[in-house]
């Protein structure tokens, strides 16, 4: 039996596989017909390469847009993102301007969330408060990702004593309740948005370290790592080209989830009075401000609270969808 015969006809070199023929850039190949054979090959490989990448990223994104839940949650988060970057675009009213005659007025058209005890527009305060709250949450998660990745990779990739030491430290951190740890850190480094972010960030490092380590351990034992090693790749190359990109998925999902957790933690801390100083607004302080009027004017606490809840729910939904798609 000869090779030519037992090989499926579609696999003959130079003939495109039917299913992939859409991405074979035959048009460009024709236009460069005069170039020598090897250069023609270059072109094929190169554009097949980028076309394939584009098609794959489209294949991932398009189905996402067909999920109404994801679109709603994503749209809401996008709005919150805009609010954090340019709050005046969404809420043109000054969040600190007091109108004493309109204090504690309920939600109405034009004043969507009502006003607080000084007659400040709550909608503006929530929108303008986004900047500080989102900043704090992103900073916290940023700290957690960087520190968690470093610890997790060190632990999982090097193993042995390094692994034992890092993981015991992580165990100790996990043993202390996150909020307690954050309170202790804040008392040590002082009040304000930045310290709150640092404190919350440190509190969620262990989760990232654990997840990263588990993923690195999983990927490290896969055959293609061994193949790369036999191919002569150095450990650093293996780490950066194979291990990290392939362990990144679950960590990214956890990051989106933890932005939600960080928002809640930061709001809790500012609710307790450790956050930004008045009159600057943060979501936590807004909720806290209304607690004296819970009976007479419940919207002052409830509406900012609901706003935060929706942000966190949206983040959870997005994280879960991303997790499903990744699989």
């Amino acid at each position, binding site marked *: *039996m000869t*090779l030519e015969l*037992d*090989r499926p006809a579609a*696999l*003959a*070199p*130079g*003939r*495109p*596989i039917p299913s*992939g*023929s859409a*991405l*074979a850039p035959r048009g460009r190949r024709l236009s460069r017909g005069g170039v020598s054979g*090897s250069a023609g*090959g*270059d072109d*094929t*490989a*190169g*554009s*097949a*390469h*980028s*076309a*394939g*990448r584009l098609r*794959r990223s489209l294949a991932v994104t398009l*189905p996402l847009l067909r999920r109404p839940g994801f679109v709603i949650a994503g749209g809401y988060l996008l709005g919150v993102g805009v609010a954090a970057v340019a709050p005046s675009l969404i809420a043109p009213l000054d969040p600190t301007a007091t109108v004493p005659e309109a204090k504690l007025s309920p939600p109405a058209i034009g004043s969507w969330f009502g006003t607080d005890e000084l007659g400040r527009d709550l909608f503006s305060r929530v929108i303008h408060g986004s900047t500080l709250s989102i900043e704090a949450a992103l900073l916290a998660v940023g700290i957690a990702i960087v520190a968690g990745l470093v610890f997790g990779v060190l632990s999982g990739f090097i193993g042995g004593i390094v692994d034992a030491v890092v993981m015991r430290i992580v165990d100790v951190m996990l043993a202390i309740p996150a909020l307690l740890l954050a309170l202790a850190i804040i008392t040590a480094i002082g009040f304000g948005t930045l310290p709150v972010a640092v404190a919350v960030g440190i509190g969620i490092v262990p989760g990232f370290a654990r997840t990263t380590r588990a993923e690195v351990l999983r990927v490290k034992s*896969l*055959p*293609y790592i*061994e*193949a*790369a*090693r*036999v*191919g*002569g*790749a*150095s450990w650093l*190359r293996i780490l950066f*080209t*194979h291990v990290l*990109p*392939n362990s990144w998925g679950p960590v990214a999902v956890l990051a989106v989830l933890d932005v939600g957790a960080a928002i809640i933690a930061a709001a809790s801390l500012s609710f307790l009075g450790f956050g930004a100083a008045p009159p600057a607004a943060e979501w936590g302080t807004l909720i806290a401000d209304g607690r004296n009027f819970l009976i007479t004017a419940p919207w002052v606490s409830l509406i900012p609270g609901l706003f935060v809840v929706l942000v966190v729910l949206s983040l959870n939904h997005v994280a879960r969808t991303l997790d499903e798609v990744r699989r």
Partner: protein
Amino acid sequence: MSAAPTSVGMHEPLLEVRDLTVSYRGSSGTVAAVTNLSFTVAAGETVAIVGESGSGKSTTASAITGLLPTAAKVSSGSIRLDGVELAGASDRVLRGVRGRTVGLVPQDPGVSLNPTIRVGRQIGEAVVAARGPRGRSLDADVEKLLIDVGIDDPELRARQFPHELSGGQKQRVLIAIALAGSPKLIIADEPTSALDVTVQRRILDHLESLVHAHGTSLLIITHDLAVAADRADRVLVLADGELVEQGPSAQILRLPSQDYTRTLIAAAPALSTDGRLVVRHSVAAQTAQEPADEVLRVTGLRKVFPIRGAGRERQEFVAVDNVDLVIRRGETTAIVGESGSGKTTTLRLALGLERATAGSVIFGGEEVVGRHWRSLRHLRHRIQLVQQNPFGSLDPRFTVFDSIVEPLVANRVGDRASRRRRADELIDLVQLPRTVLGRIPRELSGGQRQRVAIARALALEPELILLDEPVSALDATVQGQVLELLVDLQRRLGVSYLFVSHDLAVVAQLAHQVLVLQGGVVVEEGPADTVLRSPSHPYTRELIAAVPGRSALIPEGAKL
């Protein structure tokens, strides 16, 4: 096409599938996995469904057990099992049928048992589900089932967890679970493809005798025509969801009426040659030439793994003991043995991935044992590896191009343009179209992936390639193609192979020299045709006898 007239004189066959069409809902509309399939299984009969992956054979099995995935639907046709219509039946009806009328032996024994529950309880659950509460007699029932499926010391085994059992024992436990409700039909979905050949043979022998003893019907789903021909009364050949041919096993093998069946037969080495192993590289051809120079020489190789015992005491496990082997330029040395025989460890030691306890490995005139991985970098590019599982050996995020040129990038060989050219050459060499360079592994079939892995191993122009069961994860027809490719590459490039396999039919196609390993010790070695045609060690003879596809063609007395 002629269906065997098995049901003549019987009122109704046990299983009757008529015009069955199963389709999958996908992003681009529905795709039929099985189209207009009709067949019957009579009481006490053994029928095999043979086909490559994607032929719809497993879908058929799932349809009969009512375990189709949610995206799949029986769009037309009927499945009558023991007088009950199963197509479109409610879950309650199906639950009544499963276990009691039809038992399933799943594909992979490694993942089909719950790792946290003792084996005895898992069998017990199946017994209770099928026969109702049993009270105190349950333990006795479980024990009897374990004895039935041939497990030694059933009382101890029942109290063990799945991870404490070997693959073969787990498979027997799964058979016990399938037998728990004394079903009239047992469906075995690739029952042995995850097992060693000798274990596979014992399990199938046992399943066969159980089926005969109980008068049960057996439906074997397999990609291996040889296994089917050995075991079944009747064989159905499936391709792309359609029935290609059916008939009694011997008839299908000797007088196949369809081209596709002939391809399948040609792909099963033991079948195409009338059940005898034909060695490609015979001694006559070898002695005619001067012996080529040595590429790799292994002497007195030994590897001991420490294992943690129950208490404080340290135990040792000798994986490889005093192994000698020589690989010559342009030749293939095969190491044959079952899992646990130390064949893969030997390969890893030769490569320097594991540290040898004692002995020497000389490659390119240099001693490899005891040297640091980094200090061997200059040798590394001359010795490369092709791994067993093509589904795990390629980085899922790398395109084929990235994977193939990775050894070049890692060793800083050439620039962008020269790597491009080399990738084109390599992809031509392994006979894939250049368009696959832009794809990622997920978009390739198993055979294509293995070709990519071979191209990657060739990238640095090595003198020696280590092949760790390179075709065992592939379909029979694809196996044949990849083996042909390897032989062709050896002829063209003069590369040497160290080849590890448990399948003697595959070894016969590739090897010049054969080493038979049992428990880490070489029990027999020599030129391929001497070892495979006139084996001197009983273990080698057992391995040869276990090659499937022989019993259907060779009369009982003529076997080795």
